[in-house]
């Protein structure tokens, strides 16, 4: 969301600190360790999953560094949308805004499906789909009323879920929780050969998907030039820790064939240990992360839709702010039918795939925005670029390359999804570019950001 026109964020109190940035990023993403990542095992076995963890992890470390530099420089709440708007152009901005919206809506549906599946497994008489609808409706209502309290609760839920993973890992390696079976790794090492290992990359982003969202609270940070880079890097390290620990625990406690199709692998791994404490901790962790993530995604997706509407990419009808709750309530309500449409398919992998495609669009555009930013403002000054990321723009080019490679691996098993997804975004790009031609752009770097004119205009 652009800072200059965003009524909801106008005059926001700048109180957030690095741990808030950490909590925002990890809060949405940690669910990726509790479910979804294990589809890498179905594609490429344990070796495929490890490969996906390392390659996607490398890409996300670089995305984090790009987001840190862009977030601490612009200090705007819109994150990737604002970076593309400022440094690339209106068509790219709308594309990123839409991709962020779809990425988070699909993630919300996936979370709701998992919570409903857990509920159905506990109470077999309850059907999954009605529970999924109920969860989506409940979260929409929570966000309609306001999110401050809900996000504070998110932080507590996320922290509990993270501690559960760390305790489980150390309990397992010290021999207190279950027996780690090397034979599970050997039998499920690489069921589909080298192609399978490469194809596993397609679900690798699920370990870290959405971490760039941490920089979206830059506008509300007390010291964004410290809080954003520190919180973002701490968040990324937390996810790397969580992903490594999760892969290790699950690969040695669940046979690979079962692990590849599990809806909630960490909970199943805990169940296999027979420890009541761990079963309860990981069961609660799964529920908590799904709810925290779904709640955060409704918030972020609705703000992205609101920003698109406010900046006239969509009808202005969605840009209304609730007079009492100060939320973009129409944009919030509109998340519900889209989330239900995703959930209606009922196939977790299909929903996750669309979220990943949307995320990868962002991971091409974020480093591209950084490359453009550095070309427009090559000098390093406290005002324009207080945090200078390392090895740039080389890392930005490598990130774009890795994102495209990972996207191409969707060809194995999800070729139609990939074609449909790309076609959807190409049409959206041309539509928004055409629509925006009729709108006059009045953007002043000095007035909007307090920056000098870009190098090519001086």
């Amino acid at each position, binding site marked *: 969301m652009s800072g200059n026109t965003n009524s909801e964020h106008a005059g926001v109190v700048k109180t957030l600190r690095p741990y808030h940035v950490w909590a925002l990023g990890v809060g949405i993403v940690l669910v990726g360790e509790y479910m979804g990542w294990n589809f890498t095992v179905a594609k490429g076995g344990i070796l495929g999953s*490890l490969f996906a963890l390392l390659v996607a992890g490398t890409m996300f470390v670089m995305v984090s*560094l790009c987001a840190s530099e862009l977030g601490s420089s612009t200090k705007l709440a819109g994150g990737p949308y604002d970076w593309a708007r400022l440094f690339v152009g209106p068509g790219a901005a709308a594309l990123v805004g839409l991709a962020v919206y779809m990425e988070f809506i699909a993630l919300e549906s996936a979370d709701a499906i998992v919570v409903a599946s857990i509920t159905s497994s506990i109470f077999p008489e309850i059907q999954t789909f009605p529970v999924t609808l109920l969860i989506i409706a409940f979260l929409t209502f929570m966000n309609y009323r306001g999110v401050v309290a809900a996000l504070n609760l998110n932080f507590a839920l996320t922290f509990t879920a993270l501690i559960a993973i760390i305790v489980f890992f150390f309990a397992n390696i010290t021999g207190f929780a279950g027996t780690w079976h090397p034979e599970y790794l050997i039998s499920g090492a690489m069921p589909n050969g080298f192609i399978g290992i490469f194809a596993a990359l397609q679900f690798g982003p699920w370990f870290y998907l959405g971490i760039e969202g941490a920089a979206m609270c830059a506008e509300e940070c007390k010291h964004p030039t410290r809080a954003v880079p520190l919180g973002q890097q701490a968040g990324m390290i937390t996810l790397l820790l969580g992903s490594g620990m999760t892969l290790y625990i699950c690969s040695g406690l669940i046979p690979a064939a079962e692990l590849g199709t599990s809806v909630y692998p960490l909970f199943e791994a805990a169940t296999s240990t027979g420890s009541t404490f761990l079963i309860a901790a990981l069961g609660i962790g799964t529920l908590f992360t799904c709810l925290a993530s779904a709640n955060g995604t409704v918030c972020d997706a609705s703000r992205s839709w609101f920003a698109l509407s406010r900046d006239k990419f969509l009808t202005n009808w969605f840009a209304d702010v609730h007079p009492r709750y100060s939320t973009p309530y129409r944009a919030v309500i509109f998340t519900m039918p889209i989330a239900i449409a995703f959930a209606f398919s009922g196939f977790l992998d299909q929903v996750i795939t669309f979220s990943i495609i949307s995320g990868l669009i962002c991971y091409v555009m974020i480093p591209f925005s950084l490359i453009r930013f550095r070309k427009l403002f090559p000098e390093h000054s406290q005002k324009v670029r207080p945090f200078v990321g390392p090895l740039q723009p080389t890392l930005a080019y490598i990130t774009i390359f890795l994102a495209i490679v990972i996207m191409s691996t969707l060809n194995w098993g999800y070729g139609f999804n990939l074609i449909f997804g790309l076609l959807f975004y190409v049409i959206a790009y041309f539509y928004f570019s055409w629509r925006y031609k009729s709108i006059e752009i009045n953007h002043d770097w000095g007035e909007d950001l307090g920056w000098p004119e870009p190098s090519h205009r001086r």
Partner: protein
Amino acid sequence: MVNKTKYHNDLKKDAGIIVLVLGLLFFSETFVFYRIMSTLWDAVPEVRIIFPVYLLFLMLLLGIETIGCITVYKSIKEHMYDFKYYE
């Protein structure tokens, strides 16, 4: 007037957090990598062929993250008085 002692102590705390989480990351990633690779080394011959690629990405991941953290630390140190980070 800036309290320099407080600033240096708080900077040390930031550095401590970075070193702590980086240490935990190095331990956990190398432990997981070693256990999985050593388990599969003899049982799955193909591991020897692709091992260099895995090692390359492990080193890239840890290396870039370390460089990133050092850069964050240097940036905080450079700007802490200008932006009054620890007020």
